[in-house]
């Protein structure tokens, strides 16, 4: 089975993240950039499928030059090859445009299954898997906490707030996963060394037959019109027990809907 895993480089969610003050796009220059955490679970799932059934795992990334670092990191976990779509005109693209670029890049590859994280920790819009599946004309199985491949059928347990739904599709599909699906492996030392020699194909918009004026910030369907830093944390409520402390605590918990 030929699996393509979408990998996005994002600013480390554990560190300070900012938007640029002029166009409100993510400030990647000042951030420590890492693989989107949820994508590591998609990579792990792809590797497990390959280990069980054979096949090939290819990483697909749309991102600036600096994303190479995340691609190498992803390859060190075990995938066979990578495709990096890099073109200055793509900067600032929204999900609609990015899904078009991804669909065009997948058009250059042979694949049976696309795996990706259910969300990226920067934009958190969660729509890429659906948009991409629509563009590719294949089913979208999204938000998986479990994936079973049986011959031509792909069945997921779609995680919901209350439990899960079983969703099945046959043939080619886009599957997005949550971090409940597996425990991603660490790269191995040999994997790190081998990753340096794995093929990474670089594609531009021209290579994909896409016009520059269909992508990028200026042509995006959505725009961030303003942004403000998160307000500083408020001081908590202090309850002084003057015989009524217990009641006050319970009232606080009730108002905040903790009980």
């Amino acid at each position, binding site marked *: 089975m030929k699996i393509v895993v979408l990998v996005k480089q994002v600013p480390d969610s554990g560190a300070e993240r900012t938007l640029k003050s002029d166009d409100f796009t993510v400030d990647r220059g000042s951030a420590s950039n890492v693989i989107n955490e949820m994508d590591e679970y998609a990579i792990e799932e792809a590797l497990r499928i390959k280990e069980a059934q054979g096949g090939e795992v290819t990483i697909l990334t749309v991102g600036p030059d600096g994303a190479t670092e995340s691609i190498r990191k992803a390859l060190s976990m075990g995938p066979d090859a990578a495709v990096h779509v890099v073109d200055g005109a793509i900067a600032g693209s929204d999900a609609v445009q990015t899904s078009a670029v991804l669909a065009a890049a997948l058009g250059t590859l042979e694949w049976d299954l696309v795996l990706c994280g259910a969300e990226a920790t920067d934009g958190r819009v969660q729509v890429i898997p659906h948009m991409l599946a629509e563009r590719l004309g294949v089913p979208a199985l999204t938000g998986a906490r479990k994936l079973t491949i049986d011959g031509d059928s792909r069945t997921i347990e779609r995680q919901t707030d209350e439990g899960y739904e079983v969703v099945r599709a046959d043939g080619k599909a886009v599957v997005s996963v949550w971090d409940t699906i597996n425990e991603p492996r*660490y790269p191995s*030392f*040999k994997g*790190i060394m081998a990753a340096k020699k794995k093929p990474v194909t670089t594609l531009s918009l021209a290579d994909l037959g896409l016009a520059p004026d269909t992508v990028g910030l200026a042509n995006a369907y959505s725009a961030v019109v303003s942004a403000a830093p998160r307000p500083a944390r408020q001081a908590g409520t202090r309850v002084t027990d003057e015989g009524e402390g217990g009641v006050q605590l319970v009232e606080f918990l009730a108002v905040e809907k903790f009980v």
Partner: protein
Amino acid sequence: MSAPGAARPVAVERMLPTEEATELLGLAAEIADGELAPRAADFEARGEFPREVFRTLGRAGLLSLPYPEEYGGADQPYEVYLQVVEELARRWLSVALGVSVHTLSCFPVAEFGTDEQRKRFLPDMLGGEQLGAYCLSEPAGGSDAAALTTRAVADGDEYRVTGTKAWVSHGGCADFYNLFARTGGPGPEGISCLLVDPASPGLVPQAPERKMGLSAERTSQLAFDDVRVPADRLLGGEGVGFRIAMRALDGGRLGIAACAVGLAQSALDYACAYAAEREQFGRPIAAFQGVGFLLADAATQIAAARSLVLSAARLKDAGRPFSVEAAKAKLFATDTAMRVTTDMVQVLGGYGYVADHPVERYFREAKVLQIVEGTNQIQRVVIARALTGGGPV
């Protein structure tokens, strides 16, 4: 106050020989932060052996670093391997010590095994799923290892082993044992090395020792009651065992020394974060010379210990004699770990003496490093003999 250990410690400046060594140290630190640091205090408190953590290290390729690629190793120089051990010890000494013991336990086959034995045993030993143990000491004989009494009597194409081995790290949970037993007469010439399968009938691990520290590291006696070991598991020939043991220990001593540097660094990391945050008389205690100088001395001693360890390692990597330098490194690094952990308890004052902070555990753990892989008195014997022409000291 919040636990200052949560702050990521300052990176140690390292001169590494290759870009791949830099990548390797990065991987070791990533796994140490992600898998070792969060578990150490809990596992030590419960005295549980972290077998799964070793599997994670094995899968990442960290249990076979200084051995040939041909057999599943990573062909890394000792200089690099030891810095990986140091990074692991900085998060969890029991695990780093386990890595050192396993590496030591692969040495006899790797260095003294025949080609056939290497092909047969090494790939599994270095594959990451197995852990080795080293059985040299006995209840009545530690420093005077050449006086060991466990007997291996040739009987057809087998040896029949009877005796008791003591202080066996991974005793009872290892996948292979390097056993040193007497096949000949008294003295070092009568000792041979056998590779023993833990499932051998008559091999009975005893209850784990109840130690001052390293509770998550299992140490047990092993009783051998007429255990049959196939003769094709004899390593290096009869009578070569003591030479194998001493050669293996030269490398093992550097492993312990690297553990000591990592442990001392860990104590310093914690105490520095604490001293920067803890206020007395209106300012952080780090601003008082009495505390700042303790930290400065510790940092200096640790840097000196690290240099000594790596200097001995580079001699080994160059194929030059390094036994005496390894003895000096083990002596100095482990004495440094004892002194530094003692002083770092002092920096934390009363908080240093209670289990809410890890420095009291570091202090207890440091002590054993002055004892294992040759007591520091034995290291001095090795060094003094070299100075005075090899005679008895």
